[in-house]
């Protein structure tokens, strides 16, 4: 009987477990989870604060998930060392867990720059885990002033989550725009305006230089008083275990399309891994949930002796704030064309006759058609792309493609 070990307990770990079980019903699976919680969906923590979900519904899988999959779960323990030669994982609590195949799905950790005086701030929080969200919930009160450092996906989602429960929210970022990882300047300006209309204040191209108790002194010299501080500057892949074991690590653990690291029988998936971006044509960390699950699934299948490739990882983000939805995908290179209508904005990036990326604000209906054009690298000369810019429709495809998509099993 094969022995599997999974380090981590998020979407990549679930994908891995389900991948293993798709081939091997009997092998023993040990899950090492630093967080002492049943697997839950981290992106839902802002929805929790907003009251759109609750702790029970945040579970990513049913309460009987581990039992049904025959997993032994070490909750509240963490892996501290991998012995790649001896094929064991040492845990913090001192257990040595042997493996035949190991998956590192350890996620990422918040990156906190060394702010001067940060230790003088009483109420400061990250916004990654459910515990972060619960602690933040304890700390906020009606009328309280919140300073969020970081205008990225995490910081802004946090702002939306607590918006109705606090007095004032200020968001600062060194970047000159919001959501700089997924939006160009024009699109970011639209979102910033929308958030400002909702009452959120921004200090961009500016960041905290030092903290003095309940006050932040900004690089610009401005001073911001706050009751609660949220740090959402960025995240870093938890790749240390594999690096220390001698595996190849860049920004994340380097993996191939089967999810295998450079060390024998050690796989990696999710936010800690750096695999191929199918659109960019290079390796990079793609810390988004679908990639975590799919990469984990491929790793699991391969750990169990199967052969599954995860070769379609690409950036995709879908995020909304106060009723305005944004979808982005791919890379923004090539020629840009734009369609504006009824307050909705669509930008498409076409290179060498192939759709490479898009940014949709507002008009996000049926964006999956665009995403599939990017993913499948459909030559735009074979479809009526122009007409689909306004509304993505299946009429743009040839009857043959439609026959395949709708007339049979896909």
């Amino acid at each position, binding site marked *: 009987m094969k022995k599997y070990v999974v380090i981590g307990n998020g979407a990549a770990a*679930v*994908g891995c477990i389900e991948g293993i079980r798709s081939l091997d019903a009997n092998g023993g699976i040990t899950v090492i989870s630093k967080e002492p919680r049943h697997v839950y*969906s981290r*992106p*839902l923590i802002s*929805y929790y604060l907003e009251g*759109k*979900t609750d702790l029970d*519904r*945040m*579970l*990513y*899988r049913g309460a009987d998930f581990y039992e049904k999959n025959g997993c032994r779960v070490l909750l509240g323990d963490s892996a501290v060392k991998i012995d790649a030669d001896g094929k064991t994982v040492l845990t913090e609590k001192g257990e040595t867990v042997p493996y035949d195949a190991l998956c590192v799905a350890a996620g990422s950790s918040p990156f906190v720059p060394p702010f001067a005086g940060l230790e003088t701030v009483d109420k400061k929080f990250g916004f990654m885990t459910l515990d972060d969200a619960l602690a933040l919930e304890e700390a906020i009160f009606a009328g309280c002033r919140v300073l969020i450092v970081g205008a990225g996906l995490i910081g802004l989602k946090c702002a939306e989550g607590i918006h109705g429960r606090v007095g004032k929210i200020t968001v600062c970022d060194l970047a000159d725009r919001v959501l700089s990882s997924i939006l160009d300047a024009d699109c970011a300006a639209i979102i910033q305006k929308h958030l400002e209309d909702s009452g959120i204040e921004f200090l961009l191209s500016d960041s905290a230089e030092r903290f003095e108790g309940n006050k932040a002194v900004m690089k610009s010299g401005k001073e911001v008083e706050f009751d609660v501080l949220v740090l959402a500057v960025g995240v870093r892949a938890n790749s240390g275990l594999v690096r220390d074991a001698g595996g190849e690590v860049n920004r994340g653990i380097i993996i191939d399309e089967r999810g295998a690291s450079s060390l024998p029988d050690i796989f990696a998936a999710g936010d800690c891994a750096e695999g191929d971006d199918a659109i960019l044509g290079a390796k990079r960390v793609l810390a988004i*949930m*679908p990639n975590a*699950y*799919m990469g984990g*699934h491929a790793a699991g299948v391969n750990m169990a002796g199967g052969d599954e490739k995860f070769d379609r990882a690409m950036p*995709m983000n*879908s*995020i*909304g704030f106060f009723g305005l*939805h944004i*979808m982005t*995908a791919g890379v923004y290179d090539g020629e840009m064309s734009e369609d504006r209508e009824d307050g909705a904005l669509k930008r498409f990036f076409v290179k060498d006759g192939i759709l490479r990326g898009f940014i949709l604000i507002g008009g*996000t*209906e*049926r*964006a*999956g*058609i665009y*995403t*599939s054009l990017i*993913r499948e690298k459909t030559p735009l000369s074979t479809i009526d792309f122009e007409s689909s810019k306004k509304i*993505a*429709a*299946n*009429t743009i495809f040839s*009857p043959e493609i*439609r*026959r395949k*998509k*709708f*007339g*049979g*099993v*896909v």
Partner: protein
Amino acid sequence: MKRVYVNEEWCLGCHLCEYNCAFANSKLERMAALKGKKIFPRIHVEGDDRITFAVSCRHCTDPICVKSCIAGAISKVDGVVKIDKPRQVRRVSDVRSRLPVRRARARRERNDAEMRALPLEQGGQTRVRDGLPERRDRL
């Protein structure tokens, strides 16, 4: 598993499939009671002035929507893609951008997760009575 297959050479674009889908899940006794009501069918007629065809969930062999759902609120059981209603948050439009084909148009005021197909899920059989599918219990 049985699916709804599309044969666009035969489709006249009459939209009756949409009404029958809505009626099958409406708990109404007579289809006429749908008259004047806004319906939310799981099958939709698309097309232009040359061609029409009906589109519903394909219950894909490799369902990207299931794998992409941030809430884990979509699963595939016995070949059927299902929405786990208790688990969904109020909007699950995150899923929409992953859909390789398409789903129903967004219905902003409702749970977007409703954009699933197959009114006949939950292992139920459609019993034909008087030429119309009998209403079935909802999820």
